[in-house]
């Protein structure tokens, strides 16, 4: 009788590991499919061969037709970075969302509701419409979006700190900032020329069209630098979920770790959305979907929701590219179309 809890916990742990392994397999399969999408015809099997051939040119024996069609060049030059960028962006945004929801103990917390996404849009709009920014050239829009996102995060943190770090205060401050930045963006759209306004609108849709290997490199470096420490501190997030006082009594340096978590989550968010535009929805929904399936232990919740985010974003991007032949629907729009019904479905049957 006494060990039923232990057995159940072991089962739960197995379920969590299984869920993560399953997601990795789905992601690999989805990546293979994603690479086939485009004007040059490639089968899923060909795409894996081409990926491997790029990694190990000597070990892989390419069939002649793939050499003729320059499959390796197409995959590595045009398609693969977009697929990886989708995976990295979905992974990072979802983990950032999980961390924000965990630290703030609020299911509404996400890069959108904290104003970080709209700050990035505002920064991008200033760069696009006014041509003003900290950097010039190709970094003008990206640099502005990144800086504004970090500025918003710092502002929320500063205000909450002044008022004593309550999680509700932070969310209210974030929503207030969101409206402020949206208002500035609207003003710029009102003042800007039609061409500039169109550019702003397209930026705000969020898309993977502008991905490249160097951009993927930057995002990957930030994710690799930030996510492992977050995972290592996962117990702190678990403890914070029980309230600040309990967390402190369990040995968590509450204020320092909240600040660290928020900074890390903001940084990951900012570095992704400055390249993609606003894909904020993933950060809200992927953590919820994951929590409904495998529960709240952040040691598994963080990596699993990252993977759910990656699957969602990559899946949405695939659909966005094939749904209307000849046109690519911005992935920010597709994620909402794809994710919200699924989210509502899970939500409705949760207690059934």
């Amino acid at each position: 009788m006494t060990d039923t809890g232990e057995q159940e916990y072991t089962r739960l742990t197995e379920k969590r590991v299984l869920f993560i392994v399953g997601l990795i397999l789905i992601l690999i399969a989805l990546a293979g499919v994603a690479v086939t999408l485009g004007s040059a015809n490639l089968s899923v099997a060909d795409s894996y061969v081409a990926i491997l051939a790029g990694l190990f040119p000597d070990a892989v024996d390419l069939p002649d037709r793939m050499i003729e069609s320059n499959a390796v060049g197409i995959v590595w030059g045009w398609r693969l970075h977009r697929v990886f960028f989708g995976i990295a962006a979905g992974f990072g945004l979802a983990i950032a969302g999980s961390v924000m929801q965990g630290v703030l103990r609020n299911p509404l917390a996400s890069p959108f509701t904290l104003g970080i996404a709209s700050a990035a849009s505002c920064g991008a709009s200033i760069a696009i419409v006014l041509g003003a920014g900290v950097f010039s050239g190709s970094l003008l829009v990206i640099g502005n979006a990144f800086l504004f996102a970090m500025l918003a995060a710092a502002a929320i943190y500063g205000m909450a700190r002044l008022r004593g770090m309550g999680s509700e205060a932070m969310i209210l401050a974030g929503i207030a900032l969101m409206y402020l930045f949206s208002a500035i963006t609207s003003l710029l759209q009102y003042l800007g020329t039609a061409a500039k306004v169109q550019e702003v609108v397209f930026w705000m849709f969020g898309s993977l069209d502008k991905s490249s290997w160097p951009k993927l490199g930057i995002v990957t470096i930030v994710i690799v630098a930030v996510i492992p420490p977050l995972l290592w501190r996962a117990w702190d997030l678990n403890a914070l979920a029980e309230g600040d006082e309990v967390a402190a009594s369990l040995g968590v340096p509450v204020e320092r770790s909240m600040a660290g978590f928020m900074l890390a989550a903001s940084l990951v968010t900012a570095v992704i959305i400055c390249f993609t535009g606003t894909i904020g929805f993933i950060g809200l929904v992927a953590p919820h979907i994951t929590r409904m399936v495998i529960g709240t232990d952040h040691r598994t919740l963080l990596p699993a929701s990252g993977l759910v985010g990656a699957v969602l974003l990559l899946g949405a991007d695939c659909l966005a590219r094939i749904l209307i032949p000849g046109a690519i629907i911005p992935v920010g729009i597709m994620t909402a179309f794809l994710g919200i019904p699924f989210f509502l479905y899970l939500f409705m049957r949760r207690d059934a």
Partner: protein
Amino acid sequence: MPLLRAQGISFAYNDHRVLDGISFTLNAGEVLGLVGPNGSGKTTLIRCLDRILAPEGEIHLDGRDMLSMSRPEIARVVAYVPQNSGALSSATVFETVLMGRRPHLRWSVSEEDKQKVSDALSLLGISAFASRRIDRLSGGERQRVLVARAIAQDARILLLDEPTSALDIRNRIEVMALLFRLAGERGLAVVAAIHDLNLAARYCHRLLILKDGRVLGQGEPSSLLTPGMVRAAYGIEAAVKDEVGVPYVVPLRPSESD
């Protein structure tokens, strides 16, 4: 050497002084009941003793100055049971109690950790719903879970803020008797804020009566709980009866205002 020694503890929220020069010691094996009217500073004192709040004065845990200890070090010596509030998380009971092992574990959960959780669950008689979600429990069940977490934490000092407030009469006695027994068996020092004077008189070795942030009196229940003391603390007239060596307070009416 006392396990817990507090010397001149004072604390103020901004300008509002809540605690004023509280001093007491507590030995291993003892249960100290914190009693006193609403707003007398019981909860604040308990938070200060775990340095959730930073008071003036000195606190020594097992002879060590608390200020020289890191948060995780304190967490291995002191466990805290908050006042029962609504469930914040949707973790399972097992996971919630497992959280008590956080000061001892690095990342992965060992067999020993799971064993300690199971032991704590069975001590509190809640093994049967170990896998239920904490936000689906009744208030009383949840309160037992919080006590179980503190026991799984393996700390020598236990601070409990109203650990029995949501419990029915049988569960109250069970939880208090358990704390009393564990204090003796494991050499714990237990500090519990309790509203029910008679429960406190029966299961605490000593009582500390707080009023307006000061110590109104401390000592063994049988000598401390007199009609005069009850009047001074709560402003009520009461009869104090002797139930086999344990004082039993029967409230009669509010005192005439002075």
